[in-house]
């Protein structure tokens, strides 16, 4: 499923955060939104995910205006994880993941229990939390907790997965674990992934497409090797950095100093 933003503008409390954004996010790929703090990355994500519908312009999902899609219907196609999620202290991993089936349940129709169970099991095994199912979510380590939340999003059986800084506050091993899960979901199940990342090397390594947000607008967008270079880092982040390729042909960047 494709996502497109047309002339998208968002203001929060009368302060313009994004203005005249035009972007299209490629179907079946991993896209990372990068940019400096306060550039409006999360705001862009929230508008595109339908969490904040207080925007001007249009968000088009699979050819349909986002505002014309019913909330539950959207939740069956698109799952989103914001930052800083919290669950009541006694909610277990399994319960949390089961909440991901909410969009498939209604007052009038009994949901298909087998389908629900299968989706929950699948989501837990994809994120490697099956063995933690009876643990309380809030008692898990940061990495395990993040995986449990991703499992909840997966139980929605989405075609699009939107993640806001999924690796922030995690140590390097857990960061890598989360990124590998995201990569597998994209490769094995064709899920379109859109995420905000701060760690540029990760963004380059795992993304097919980068969207760079700066000064309320889109600075540039494209494949990582076309976007990432020294001029870009200077203009967007104001740092001098060296970009080179390692033995595996991956682009690596090393920041040198802040240019102010």
């Amino acid at each position: 499923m494709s996502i497109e933003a047309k002339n998208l503008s968002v203001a929060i409390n009368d302060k313009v955060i994004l203005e005249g954004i035009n972007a299209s996010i490629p179907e079946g790929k991993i896209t990372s939104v990068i940019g400096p703090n306060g550039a409006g990355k999360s705001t862009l994500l929230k508008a595109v995910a339908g969490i904040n519908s207080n925007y001007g312009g249009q968000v088009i999902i699979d050819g349909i205006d986002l505002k014309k899609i019913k909330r539950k219907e959207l939740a069956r196609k698109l799952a989103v994880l914001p930052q800083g999620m919290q669950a009541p202290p006694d909610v277990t991993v399994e319960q949390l993941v089961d909440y991901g089936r909410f969009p498939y349940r209604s007052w009038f129709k009994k949901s298909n229990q087998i389908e629900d169970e299968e989706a929950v099991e699948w989501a837990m095994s994809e994120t490697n939390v099956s063995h933690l199912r009876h643990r309380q979510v809030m008692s898990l380590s940061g990495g395990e907790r993040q995986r449990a939340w991703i499992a909840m999003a997966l139980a929605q059986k989405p075609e699009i997965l939107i993640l806001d800084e999924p690796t922030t506050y995690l140590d390097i091993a857990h960061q890598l674990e989360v990124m590998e899960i995201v990569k597998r979901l994209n490769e094995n199940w064709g899920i379109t992934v859109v995420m905000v990342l701060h760690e540029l090397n990760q963004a380059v390594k795992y993304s097919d497409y980068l969207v760079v947000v700066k000064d309320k607008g889109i600075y540039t967008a494209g494949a990582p090797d076309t976007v990432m270079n020294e001029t870009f880092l200077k203009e967007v982040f104001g740092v001098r950095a060296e970009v080179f390729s390692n033995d595996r042909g991956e682009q690596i960047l090393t920041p040198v100093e802040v240019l102010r």
Partner: protein
Amino acid sequence: MSDNKSSVKWRISILAIFAILAVVGFLLSIMMGSVSIPAQEVLDSLMGNATGTHEKILNSIRLPRTVVGALVGMNLALSGAILQAVMKNPLADPHIIGISSGAGIAGIMVMLIFPGYEMFVTPVAFVGAMLAAVCIYILAWKNGIRPVRIILAGVAVSAFLGAGISGMMIFNSDKIHNALMWMVGGLSARSWPHVAMIWPYSLGGGILALLAARHINILQLGDEVAKGLGVRVELTRIVLTAIAALLAASAVSVVGLLGFVGLIVPHAARLIVGSDYRFLLPASALLGIGVVTICDTVARVAFAPVELPVGILMAAFGAPFFLFLLRREL
């Protein structure tokens, strides 16, 4: 404990225990009082095949009073349980959406300024409670509702109305007795007309609350996650707040400003059955019935022939219990 709490079996057995507690409280409240009535006669009377003075006491005094107490306990507990989730605040209860201060000022106004019209206390208090709740909701509205703004607006409006209550009481200090009883909350002399006033709200509100249990569960994950899962958060919050307001207003307008049931009972229930509202709501309702009927029985019997307003007893027990919960949790 943690694994226990989340097993379905454990939660259903707790519900069963709470149900037994509710039934025991109900029966005790009918049997005990200035005249004790043996269980056999109570059962006969409930079946409709008894006569005599005991039967009269049961039917015109004990039974309606007990039913009012049970419904009040249930409504306040459900209301508090809903509000704690909707406001994402463990201290939320019917007070914070203005129900108590609204009902308080309206009821006291009737009692002190229009003393001939006391039969209107209940409907006027109900209107006052709902007006205060609507007022707080409107004051807290700014591009949608943030729970924190409701709580702060609630504190401000309650303080404002509280000033009015105190003012009226000071200017009318000679006829303050009824107003004081009202402020504390009690079941004395509550009868069938009061039952008629409260039960439609208990039934309707109770059913709606149970139907909304899954939505409330999702709401506890935060607004953004809930939206992502397909919940219309603003709408759900308004509807749930309205249900909570109706439940609490119907209770408070009948018995006065009964404190702590709406705060303590859902809290206690949550500690025991956990935060899954499919279990927490029925648990709160049953525990509310049990607590109010038992407390009212004690209030009638313990200091006989003096009868305490049940509100005093519940605050006296409720406050220390609440502190105990706080120390355990924080």
